[in-house]
């Protein structure tokens, strides 16, 4: 029985979340294409260099992709995963309705504040990029929309946890099913880390953008942003991890290698995602070296869950390949279902995530970070991680999930089958070129990276690198277009069938009975996570706040710039 028939109400919520996610993916993708062609000088849709429009596009690309696309997808897939693995409906439809509405409305307000930047007649503007570093200031609507969006996710977390608690009282003594375990640990991590962004937005950015306070401390707001800003990357990645652990082994024809190790990985994410944020501030003045070193040490240990995932996922796929008749050291690779886009997308995303992991290790090194900080290397890195490990896995997951949510078979299968490969080739070109450009200091976040001086590439030329970025960007857009076409046709065309896709998920080779029960003690792990955050952040935040919390900046409101045009 398809999910849509078994739980029509939940399926509807997941469809709304996925619909919003894919809408923002499409809009963000248009922004990405504009940027790739603009900064390389191939074609400028949005006016010349000094025009602020590039940064309106850049803000929308960042916010739409990494906040709205990823998080809408997350709340959708978590709702599916929790109800499926606990085999029960969400507790209270009114709560569910509240959070999905709040998230949609918040996303709408923030989008309006950003897009208003294109129209001088509107008093809206938010060219502050996704990091919204004060004293650059956006229209208050931008921050208010984000607040509604994030509080919506908090209520979603409450919805999942309260559903789990009901399940627990009906099933005392049972192990938490793996997918529910992933949802719960991630929700706890999210509550801890969003304290930072909530404090930044509610105590500082909103009062300041409304003119209730005149100045705020820029180092403090940066630090609060990064309190949240690194853990949020795991929030993007974890839906991909969930699919790699729970669904990819099945798609490859096998079973998950180890359930216990999967639990360990998610506990490590809960413990270590937040007390690392200062690694984004290695090059900040005003933060002593010791605090940075603590953040680096935690960051390096955060490599562990991803390295463990690499092992478990590859081992599970290998098991699948051998079940399908593959043999030899590498022969099992050929036996895998490469023509199924749900499989190939996730597998290729995993390969790119390994590459992104390696460039991430460079970023994490406190000393070599100086070479690449704020260069094009960094977006080169995160287009492998969030831009492929997450995005391509979500797209692949959609090929398998959307049929279950709509009761319709996937259409245009041959087109869908090539889509992940086009993405892979496009991203290989673009990301590799961006990494290389960063090594000779070409900056990120700039509408035109040409100056009065010349760059000195170690090999190749700036023109050759730019052409790879532009070609890669075009291929990625083509791939994204195919994805949206296939999903829209599946969703709105065709007729309902009983079983649109094989949705069975086999149990792990090594099940939860092989792990100690303490792994399921969520209160304990949440307590340790809070303690680690206090240890890593209490002293630095106290030190930074000593300069004064409502002082240190003027106001550089990007929305007033728009008004001045009128006058």
């Amino acid at each position, binding site marked *: 029985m398809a999910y849509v028939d078994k739980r029509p109400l939940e399926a509807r919520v997941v469809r709304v979340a996925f619909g919003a996610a894919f809408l923002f993916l499409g809009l963000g993708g248009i922004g990405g294409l504009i940027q790739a062609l603009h900064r390389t000088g191939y074609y400028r849709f949005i006016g010349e260099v000094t025009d602020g429009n590039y940064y309106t596009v850049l803000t929308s690309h960042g916010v739409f992709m990494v906040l709205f696309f990823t998080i809408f997808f997350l709340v959708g897939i978590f709702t599916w995963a929790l109800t499926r693995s606990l085999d029960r409906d969400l507790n209270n439809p009114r709560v569910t309705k509240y959070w999905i509405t709040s998230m949609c409305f918040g996303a709408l307000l923030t989008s309006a504040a950003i897009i208003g930047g294109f129209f001088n007649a509107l008093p809206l503007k938010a060219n502050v990029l996704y990091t919204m*570093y004060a004293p*650059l200031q956006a229209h208050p609507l931008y921050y208010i929309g984000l607040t509604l969006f994030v509080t919506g996710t908090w209520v979603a977390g409450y919805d999942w946890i309260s559903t789990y608690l009901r399940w627990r009282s009906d099933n005392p003594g049972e192990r938490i099913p793996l997918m529910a375990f992933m949802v719960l640990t991630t929700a706890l991590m999210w509550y801890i880390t969003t304290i930072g962004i909530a404090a930044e937005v509610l105590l500082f950015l909103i009062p300041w953008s409304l003119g209730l306070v005149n100045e705020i401390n820029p*180092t403090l707001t940066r630090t609060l942003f990064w309190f949240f800003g690194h853990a949020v990357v795991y929030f993007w990645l974890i839906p991909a991890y969930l699919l790699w652990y729970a669904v990819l082994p099945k798609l490859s024809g096998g079973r998950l290698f180890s359930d216990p190790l999967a639990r360990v990985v998610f506990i490590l994410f809960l413990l270590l995602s937040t007390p690392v944020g200062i690694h984004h501030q290695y090059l900040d003045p005003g*933060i002593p070296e010791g605090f940075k070193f603590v953040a680096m040490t935690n960051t390096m240990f955060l490599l562990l869950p991803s390295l463990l995932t690499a*092992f478990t996922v590859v081992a599970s796929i290998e098991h699948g390949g051998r079940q399908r008749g593959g043999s030899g050291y590498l022969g099992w690779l050929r036996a895998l279902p490469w023509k199924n886009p749900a499989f190939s997308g996730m597998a290729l995303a995993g390969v790119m995530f390994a590459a992104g992991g390696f460039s991430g290790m460079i970023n994490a090194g406190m000393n070599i970070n100086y070479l690449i*900080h704020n260069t094009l290397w960094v977006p080169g890195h995160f287009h492998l991680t969030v831009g492929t490990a997450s995005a391509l896995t979500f797209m692949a997951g959609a090929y398998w999930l959307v049929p279950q949510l709509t009761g319709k078979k996937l259409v245009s299968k041959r087109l869908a089958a090539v889509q992940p490969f086009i993405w892979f080739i496009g991203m290989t070109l673009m990301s590799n070129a961006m990494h290389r450009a960063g090594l000779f*200091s070409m900056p990120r976040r700039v*509408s035109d990276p040409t100056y009065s001086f010349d760059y000195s590439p170690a090999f190749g030329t700036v023109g050759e690198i730019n052409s790879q970025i532009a070609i890669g960007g075009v291929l990625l857009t083509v791939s994204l277009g195919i994805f949206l076409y296939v999903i829209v046709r599946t969703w709105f065309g065709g007729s309902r069938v009983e079983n649109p896709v094989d949705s069975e998920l086999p149990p792990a080779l090594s099940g939860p009975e*092989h792990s100690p029960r303490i792994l399921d003690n969520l209160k304990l792990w949440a307590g340790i996570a809070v303690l680690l955050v206090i240890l890593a952040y209490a002293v630095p935040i106290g030190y930074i706040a000593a300069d004064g919390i409502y002082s*240190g900046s003027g106001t550089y409101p990007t929305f007033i710039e728009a008004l001045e045009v009128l006058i």
Partner: protein
Amino acid sequence: MDIHRFEKGWLVASLALIVLFISTVAYVSAVTGVDMVDDSGGSIDVDNVTEDDRFSDPRVEQVGENEYDVYMVAQQFVFRPGSEPFGPVRVPENSTVNFYITSQDVVHGFQIVGTNVNVMVVPGKVSEITVEFDEPAEYGILCNEYCGSGHAEMGGNVEVVARDEWNTTDGGGS
């Protein structure tokens, strides 16, 4: 807890890699004495940058036989000195140069192109970074943090000149 022996091996190798990474950074910092950017530059009142002795007249100043201080203001969308019309930062060859940089408006970045000289410039703080220059050369500098609609214009130069070409009036202020 049951862990497959291959997975145990992988776990141990992963931990070894992590410890290796941390120790290389600790070694560079503690043993070779390379300083990282920290709070040594101190705080400054952002509203009074132009009244501060160090930044009222941004400049290059000789402070030792081969040691120079550069006081630089980053603002929308120039470095003073560094960008036109203020002229490049000029320092002599084989010198140790301490850059003190502050912002009088939003967050900026300062990077010497093609090197690992890279630091954030945050309002209310003075960024301090020390650079060893050897042979005469010309370097580009740029702002690598988005700072407003003219961000792409924010670049300039550092010129490392032969010692006999450098005099005390070089590289100074506006």
